[in-house]
């Protein structure tokens, strides 16, 4: 049975990754799962300098999911290089560093610092709804996305994955812009902007007022967007949004994703990543599938 998939020349032992921001740099959930089993660890977003993030409350539960407005708190690229990457290097898994920035120059600075490390790929977050400046602006206008992608691609020594926002009118326009600018792959979806009000206290639940929604309630939207993008571009897609089980992952693969990422469900089930991998294998056995690649995009 083959579960290996290939994205931009990088081979993953299976199509299951961690969704950025839900798995730290692997240390915390390494207490629950064997990181060697994962297709890849995708790190929390990292910027050129440390970011303090948003005030609290930063998280709220919603029906079938949650909102977060962490605001991309991170210790900066130097700590990533000195502490997190050496930790991850001990494991037989691919490492994808998620990069965030407020300006194109920020992204470029972080990418250049990481170019000389053993990272396998970069995922470029142009779609975080929780920071005021930059970031999201790049992910909501096709021409801005084209420009930032082209400039990052020009300096990156690793394949890049542009991470797309669902908070747009037509996500295929974004996917096409990323492809045209030379992105090696795309990942989607980032969180869907939401809001929750505490009606007893007449206040917003999150200090940031709005937050990004993730979790199972998001899945149908994510599946639809993966399907649309798969029909619009030829570069590989990493699909995510509410994945909890192997069956969920299979659904994404059938919609056209080459790989998937598990996010908020790690919080609910700390072994979710490995459970998803095992679920995929069971599905393949049950349906006599010898190669996972057979089912990618099989539903037209």
């Amino acid at each position: 049975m083959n579960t290996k998939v290939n994205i931009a020349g990088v081979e993953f032992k299976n199509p299951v990754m961690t969704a950025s921001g839900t798995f730290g740099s692997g240390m915390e959930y390494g207490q629950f799962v064997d990181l060697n089993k994962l297709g890849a660890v995708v790190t929390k977003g990292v910027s050129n300098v440390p970011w303090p993030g948003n005030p609290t409350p930063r998280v709220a539960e919603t029906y079938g999911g949650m909102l977060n407005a962490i605001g991309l708190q991170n210790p900066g690229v130097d700590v990533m290089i000195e502490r997190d990457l050496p930790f991850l290097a001990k494991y037989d898994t691919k490492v994808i560093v998620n990069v965030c920035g407020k300006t194109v120059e920020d992204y470029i600075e972080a990418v250049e610092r990481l170019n000389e490390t053993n990272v396998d790929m970069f995922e470029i977050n142009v779609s975080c709804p929780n920071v005021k400046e930059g970031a999201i602006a790049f992910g909501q206008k096709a021409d801005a996305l084209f420009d930032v992608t082209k400039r990052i691609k020009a300096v990156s020594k690793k394949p890049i994955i542009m991470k797309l926002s669902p908070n747009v009118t037509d996500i295929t326009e974004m996917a096409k812009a990323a492809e045209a600018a030379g992105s090696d792959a795309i990942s989607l979806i980032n969180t869907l902007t939401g809001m929750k009000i505490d009606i007893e206290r007449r206040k917003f639940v999150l200090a940031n007022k709005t937050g990004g929604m993730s979790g199972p309630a998001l899945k149908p939207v994510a599946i639809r967007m993966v399907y649309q993008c798969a029909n619009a571009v030829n570069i590989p897609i990493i699909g995510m949004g509410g994945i909890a089980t192997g069956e969920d992952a299979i659904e994404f693969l059938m919609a056209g994703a080459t790989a998937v990422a598990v996010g908020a469900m790690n919080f609910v089930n700390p072994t979710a990543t490995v459970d998803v991998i095992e679920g995929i294998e069971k599905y393949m056995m049950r349906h006599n599938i010898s190669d996972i690649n057979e089912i990618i995009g099989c539903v037209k």
Partner: protein
Amino acid sequence: MFYRNVDEGTVISQEMISEGIFSLWIKNEGAKHAGAGQFVGVYPKGKDTMLMRPISICETKPEENAMRLVYRVAGAGTKEFSELKKGDKVKILANLGNGFPVDEVKGKTIVLMGGGIGIPPMLGTAKALAGEDVHAYLGYRNNDTFLSDEFMQYSKVYIAAEDGSVGVKGNVIDALKATTVLKPDVIMACGPMPMLRAIKNYAAENGITAYISLEERMACGVGACLGCVCKTVNKDEHSHVNNTRICTEGPVFNAEEVDI
């Protein structure tokens, strides 16, 4: 002792000890490794809930693998827990957080302060310090002084009630001031934020070391999501910014180190 796992717990018993406040004994593996002031994440099963509910470990019986949680029904999750019966299974993320540094304070004059639903973790702390010079100040809204009798086995007990119906009228600081032949070396506290702020200030003014247990909304409970942070005076070693994870570096902090 460090222990981290998703335990399948079994309910031993549950009773309502005060209006809307429940005492739940659970048998789970984490119990024998738990320290005073640590907490667990209890997962509700309801479809309208998803994330674990952080609840402090009130006390344990390590030899029986038993852990006691005392909680107030606040919403859907805790409502569901209140309906648990003997023999029911519960999924528990155990054990979380650092706990109170009980070994460092032995031999000193120790004041424990608990306010409202912040009282339960102080009981296990009193138990861990049994035999020491411990004074427990417990703050209640009225004369419904749940758990106060149980503190008497381990410490001297002083009660404050907001409505003055029992003990000193006011909060735990008022009670401490009212009995102030006592000069504590250390305060350990859990309770609502205004109480913790007052303790932080009182301790700073009087040269007392204070350890306070903080609360924040959590998603992962294990340090991965950065949802539960608190502002810090100095740069935090893990985050490299002035923010620290309450679930991991806390919930107990030296009051001097946090900006609350």
